[in-house]
């Protein structure tokens, strides 16, 4: 034993992927020694996080989650202002031309602490954008929908997805069975169903679909059903929304939620404590991956603890699951000489590491309905429109999914708090206070609606993560530098979606429809058609270590295994060769399950019990 590696598997990052993979590895029928290196601290308590959200001046996705000099993370506020978004005070060094507007967390549980919970699969055609629609620059996946289907099903069961089998069978195929029935559509959604469904809008007969979501519609795995706190991003106070702590605690052999004697936990067994618990090292920031020159295998990972101490750990398999930006950063920090004698960085003989950074950029439109729709109630989103996600139109423009918001103008304007401010500071004599103000606030807010179109991106070497040559974090580790632009393909999607969203809001009976461009925002562009848009980030970071069949222009294979180093896996949104329009988490988890299975199979033959 003393000559062998320290562990069988080392995972870098205790987010959605790291937690689920640790859980699977710790439950394998072979005893595996598993270590997770987590850059951030342990999850302290849900009360503290909820209180941090209540106290935060801006209720942004990062509001409840702590930042630290040793494990910094971006905030959406960093790119709010065109005067300073490229300033060195912000963790990501943004070089433009446009701001990369999505963020991530470096805290136990990772970015899936603040995810919305929307759990969509990619559509079968999303895996074949290049071959099916001949889109310039697009990439096919090295696997098909059918290859992932069973992992999608397993991922949905693991995290607990509520959805309508009947509505989604057309998209996903026969035999679909979500673990829980759908979350009820909001009263607001129902107005869309009544007034918009079946209408011909921009070439499509619109269908309003209940969204599959990792949010309990009933007790599941010891977690309660959703009670509609309307704060899914950034935090679910009842933990009806899945977050990675459930699998992490199980992987570590800790019981997350003991069965309370007054309530039967309900269907879906809670993840049991792992028979072979994994270990975790918090506040441990990986900064270099070492390669054995002779074998080409990864020989160790160096990390610093928050007090600056340097450590190194060895394993049979290494999994980087620190999300797309940090995975790329860590690889680029790790020098490697290829067998051909080329000076490169780890896993990067293709030169593709860090390139092809993608997001689902977002267009928001909002307005006031004639009849009240009573927003600010229920999960943030319970329905969407998928008509514009597929079909021959993708030859010309980016596909997009439409999300119906249940939170009024909160996203674009900060309503309802800012609505009161607006009304009290602008209303006329006798109107800006008292009962008149109260009534005006009521009348305005109960009619607020908001739609989001979320667009697919194309991979491009011009949108990328590189290492900053000038700036380091609190541990002296170089910070990520981001270059970002939007393809004309995506921009044409915006032009098309503007027509669609306006059509939908018209059909709903909406006045004062707007997509007002904030004059302070750096996230503004004008399309060839002459439309000027402000875009937002979806928080869907993809594409920095893409998968492919050809080691010459991709970083990992269909199992998320490095082409260059057979004992290295890069798992997460970074492995996506194209983005599709589905929120990526479910696909990320499906890839994690697939990689786990592969690793367990291999190690079974290597590890002696």
């Amino acid at each position: 034993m003393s000559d062998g590696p320290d562990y069988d598997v080392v995972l870098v990052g205790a987010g959605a992927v790291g937690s689920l993979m640790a859980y699977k590895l710790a439950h394998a029928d072979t005893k595996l020694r598993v270590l997770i290196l987590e850059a951030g601290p342990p999850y302290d308590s849900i009360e503290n996080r909820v209180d941090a959200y209540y106290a935060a001046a801006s209720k942004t996705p990062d509001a409840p989650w702590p930042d630290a000099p040793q494990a910094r993370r971006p905030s959406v506020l960093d790119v709010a202002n065109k005067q300073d978004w490229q300033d060195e005070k912000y963790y990501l060094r943004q070089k433009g031309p446009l701001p990369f507007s999505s963020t991530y967390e470096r805290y136990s549980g990772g970015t899936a602490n603040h995810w919305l919970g929307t759990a969509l699969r990619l559509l079968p055609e999303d895996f074949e954008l290049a071959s099916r629609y001949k889109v310039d620059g697009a990439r096919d996946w090295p696997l098909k929908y059918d290859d992932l289907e069973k992992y999608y099903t397993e991922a949905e069961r693991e995290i607990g997805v509520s959805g309508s089998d009947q509505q989604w069978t057309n998209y996903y195929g026969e035999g679909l069975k979500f673990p829980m029935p759908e979350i009820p559509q909001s009263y607001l959604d129902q107005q869309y169903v009544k007034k918009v469904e079946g209408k011909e809008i921009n070439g499509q007969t619109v269908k309003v679909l209940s969204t599959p979501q990792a949010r309990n519609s009933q007790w599941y795995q010891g977690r309660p059903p959703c009670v509609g706190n309307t704060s899914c991003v950034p935090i679910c106070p009842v933990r009806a929304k899945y977050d990675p702590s459930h699998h992490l605690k199980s992987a570590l052999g800790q019981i997350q939620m003991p069965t309370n004697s007054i309530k039967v936990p309900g269907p879906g067994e809670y993840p049991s404590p792992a028979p072979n618990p994994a270990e975790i090292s918090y506040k441990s920031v990986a900064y270099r991956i070492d390669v054995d020159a002779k074998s080409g295998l990864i020989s160790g990972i160096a990390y610093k603890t928050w007090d600056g101490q340097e450590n190194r750990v060895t394993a049979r398999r290494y999994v980087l699951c620190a999300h797309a930006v940090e995975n790329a950063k860590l690889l680029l920090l790790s020098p490697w000489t290829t067998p051909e004698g080329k000076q490169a960085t780890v896993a990067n003989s293709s030169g593709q590491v860090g390139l092809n950074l993608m997001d689902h950029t977002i267009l928001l439109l909002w307005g006031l309905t004639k009849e009240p729709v009573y927003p600010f109630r229920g999960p943030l989103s319970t329905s969407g429109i998928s008509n514009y996600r597929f079909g021959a139109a993708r030859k010309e423009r980016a596909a997009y999914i439409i999300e119906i918001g249940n939170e009024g103008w909160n996203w674009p304007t900060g309503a309802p708090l800012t609505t009161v401010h607006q009304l009290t500071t602008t209303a006329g004599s006798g109107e800006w206070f008292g009962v008149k103000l109260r009534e005006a606030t009521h009348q305005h807010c109960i009619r607020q609606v908001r739609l989001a179109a979320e667009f697919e991106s194309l991979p491009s070497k011009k949108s990328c993560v590189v290492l900053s040559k000038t700036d380091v974090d609190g541990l002296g580790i170089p910070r990520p530098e981001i270059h970002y632009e939007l393809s004309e393909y995506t921009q044409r999607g915006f032009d098309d979606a503007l027509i669609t969203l306006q059509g939908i809001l018209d059909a709903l009976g909406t006045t004062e429809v707007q997509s007002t461009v904030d004059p302070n925002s750096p996230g503004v562009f004008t399309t060839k058609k002459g439309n000027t848009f402000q875009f937002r980030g979806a928080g869907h970071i993809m594409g920095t270590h893409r998968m492919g069949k050809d080691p010459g222009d991709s970083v990992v294979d269909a199992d998320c295994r490095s082409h260059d180093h057979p004992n290295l896996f890069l798992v997460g949104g970074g492995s996506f060769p194209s983005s599709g329009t589905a929120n990526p988490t479910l696909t990320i988890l499906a890839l994690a399950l697939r990689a786990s299975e592969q690793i367990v199979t291999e190690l079974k033959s290597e590890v002696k019990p």
Partner: protein
Amino acid sequence: MITWNNIKRFFRGIDIAMMRSEVDNTITLDQPQTVWTSGDGIYARVSNQNPSQVMPPPPYAPWTPEMIQQFGQWRDTDTVVLVDPALQMQAQSFVALSELLTGFSDLNQDPVLALRYLSRLHARSDLATGVDELIQTHAALPREQFIHDVLEGPDTNPKRVAQAIILLWYTGAFFNEAGFPSDFGGAKGQYTDGLVWQAIEAHPMGYSAEGGRYWQRQPGPGGRDTGLGNTAQRPGQPATGSNELA
């Protein structure tokens, strides 16, 4: 004096919602009478040392000994003590002004909250003097004259102060120059106390006490299906003492 105004803050939105909709729908933790009547049972649960018995259940933190002691003290009184009359007196003139400004007529029911707001206003150098002046002139002048001469008079400073008071009651926050909330009063602040949520027939984002799948229905009378829980009033319809302008 321990009153309902102190006790009610021990129950988080999640406690109230989960209790009402998932555990025992006879226990409505936002109803003082129910909580007082069920006081022995609640005391037994919140003070229980057994993780499988204690409320709220893990992973939520148990009550602190001080909370348990205060709850016990409140439960042991002969009747339900809602409000401390001494605090009510202390907050009276500020509350009277606030009711005119906000359009809500029941602000005297929570002097603990009113005095927190007053203290936060006093801590602001740009508002402290103006707030006291506004309270005094409001108390001294007939209502119509106060509105005409002071709130909408030639000096714009009273209006600025009045707007800060309105925003504080509606949102729990002070706002910055750009029109965004800048200060909710820290970790034990008043975000969830904002009146705006009642005004719009909804609940504070991140704090829903109603339970159940309320959002599929249109909000109803008495705050039903707003997500707020039973204490909500019918928005837009102040119960008494309307401040409607002539």
